């Protein structure tokens, strides 16, 4: 037993000297998951060849997947809604654009520099905002979204004003110019898988548990020694970095950035995608991005319907499926499995 008052050593279990059995999972369930993931990956790879017409849409959906995926720690676990992610997309988009255009930095370096700047901005803002209770944080971030849109059209010197920043170069990767829709799609597919894997690892580690605890009961969490403000700031920084990378990719893909791309409506739709799919899941943001960005596939005139449908969907999902579509689906599967086991 290690009940004696532990010293400050890093490893609390020294002295137990025993390897712990891995969490026992249903092996067939694990196998099924691998099969599902493989099929999904295969579909993702083949899709742009089967239906070339939708590659452009898939690129945009993948960008918004990155952006909304970034929010899952903050919104899904810590329970803080940020309506201001367009600020970080703007830093990513305009920042990378300006660095490549004016200073001739390589595209990847520009994107990384912009992401670092976004992270720093989120750190400072997080320190300030996260003192605010509940939805006052959401409202402060809404202020950011409005300011972003205004700055994008008002700060003409940097952003090019309402007509936008033009002639942004395409992404250069190891000497290869990522220009076509298909090339952009595959770069984003890899980036998305890496980001999702990173988030999955964080979610099943102590940080994921800590953020869940904070979202459920900040008071009890602090009694476990958790500095809630620190963790929420960290989650905000993560969201900013991914939003910034998404924004940079958006700029490299469109080769153009304008206030319209970063409107308050876009800030709303990022949150809508996440809430729709399921804020605590990894498939959720993917599903949300595909639904919201994919609506226009149904027809050109359907693009006009998008805000209305997205708004109504959000109302219905938040009312009846608070865990989002994917979250509800997986909960249903788990319950069904448990019922089967008990028989």
């Amino acid at each position, binding site marked *: 037993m290690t009940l004696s008052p532990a010293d400050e050593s890093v490893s609390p279990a020294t002295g137990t000297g025993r390897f712990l059995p891995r969490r026992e999972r249903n092996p067939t369930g694990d196998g099924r998951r691998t099969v599902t993931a493989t099929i999904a990956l295969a579909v993702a790879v083949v899709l742009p060849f089967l239906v070339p017409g939708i590659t452009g849409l898939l690129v945009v959906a993948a960008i918004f997947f990155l952006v909304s995926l970034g929010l899952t720690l903050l919104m899904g676990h810590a329970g803080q809604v940020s309506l201001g992610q367009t600020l970080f997309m703007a830093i990513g988009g305009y920042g990378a654009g300006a660095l490549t255009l004016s200073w001739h930095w390589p595209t990847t370096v520009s994107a990384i520099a912009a992401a670092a700047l976004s992270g720093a901005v989120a750190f400072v803002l997080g320190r300030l905002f996260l003192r605010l209770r509940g*939805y006052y944080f*959401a409202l402060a971030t809404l202020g950011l979204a409005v300011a972003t849109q205004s700055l994008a059209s008002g700060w003409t010197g940097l952003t090019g004003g309402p007509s936008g920043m033009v002639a942004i170069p395409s992404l250069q990767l190891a000497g290869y110019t990522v220009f076509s829709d298909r090339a952009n799609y595959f770069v984003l597919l890899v980036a998305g898988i890496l980001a999702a894997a990173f988030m999955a690892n964080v979610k099943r580690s102590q940080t994921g548990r800590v953020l869940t605890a904070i979202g459920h009961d900040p008071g009890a969490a602090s009694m476990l020694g958790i500095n809630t403000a620190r963790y929420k700031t960290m989650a905000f920084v993560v969201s900013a970095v991914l939003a910034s990378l998404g924004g940079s990719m958006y700029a490299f893909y469109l080769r153009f950035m304008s206030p319209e791309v970063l409107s308050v409506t876009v800030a709303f739709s990022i949150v809508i995608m996440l809430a729709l799919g399921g804020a605590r899941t990894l498939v959720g943001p993917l599903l949300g991005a595909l639904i919201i960005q994919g609506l226009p596939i149904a027809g050109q005139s359907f693009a006009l319907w998008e805000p209305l449908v997205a708004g109504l969907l959000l109302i219905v999902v938040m009312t009846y499926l608070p865990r989002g579509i994917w979250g509800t689906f997986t909960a249903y599967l788990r319950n069904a499995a448990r019922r089967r086991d008990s028989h």
Partner: protein
Amino acid sequence: MTGFIQVVLGGLVDGCVYALIALGMSVVYSISRIINLAQGGFVVLSALTAVSLQQFLGLPPLAIVPIVVVLFAAVLAAVDRIVMVPAAHRATNDRMLLITVGLLQAIGGFVLLVWGNLPYTMQPFTSGAAVTIGGVRIVPQYFWIIGALLLAVAGLWYLLHRTRFGLTMRATAANPSAAALQGIHVGRTRLVAFTLCGAMAALAGTAVIPVTFLQFTTVTSYAVTGFIAAVAGGLGSTAGAVLAGLVLGLLQGVFSRYTSGDLAQVAAMTALIVLLIFRPTGLLGRTSEVRR
């Protein structure tokens, strides 16, 4: 100098609209603790409805006002019953905010679908030339806008302080759960709050559209500016909402005269954020639960 006074006057007129939006949000917030972000959206929607009704029915604009007011009182009552009641049953405050975000998005989408992204305006309520006092030009519609605000404030004051039902509303606002325990039908009180809020949105929308252009893109900017006024005034404080709305309109007017409108917007947002951080209870508010 007269130019400056003209700017101040224009700012105050805009401020009346913000005050009306903030007033509606404040009433709903104090009864239900729901921040109805969509309120500004309803202002634009009611204004565009008035334009279309006026064209369709051919009635004078002043006759359209009561129709739109009644219509939107009913619309918001329906929103309460169809959207808010089922949601508030289950959802936390955070999710309620997302639901009003959805509502705002849906209103914007509806406006886009029906009216397209085109600016609309309407004839003034009363014809008649602008009055010029000391070089400052005042169009008659300004009086209607100020009148709309005064009507809303006076009506609300009368309802809250001179009627039995007002007493119920004030009791609910002070402490919803205690009010429920005392046998007050909180659901009905909230329905009335939403109805009032709809009437105020329609008043604001119909009064302002003759002096401005409204369209799809103004939905979010009205929603956000009105919301800032509500927070700055202290959510739940009616006097604060009116005061903050007027001040905000004034500041925006003055700012956009000397800088661009975009920078004025940025300044307003910075003010909001500073306010939220350092004085989260607003100018006249008394909510103590904002900061941890």
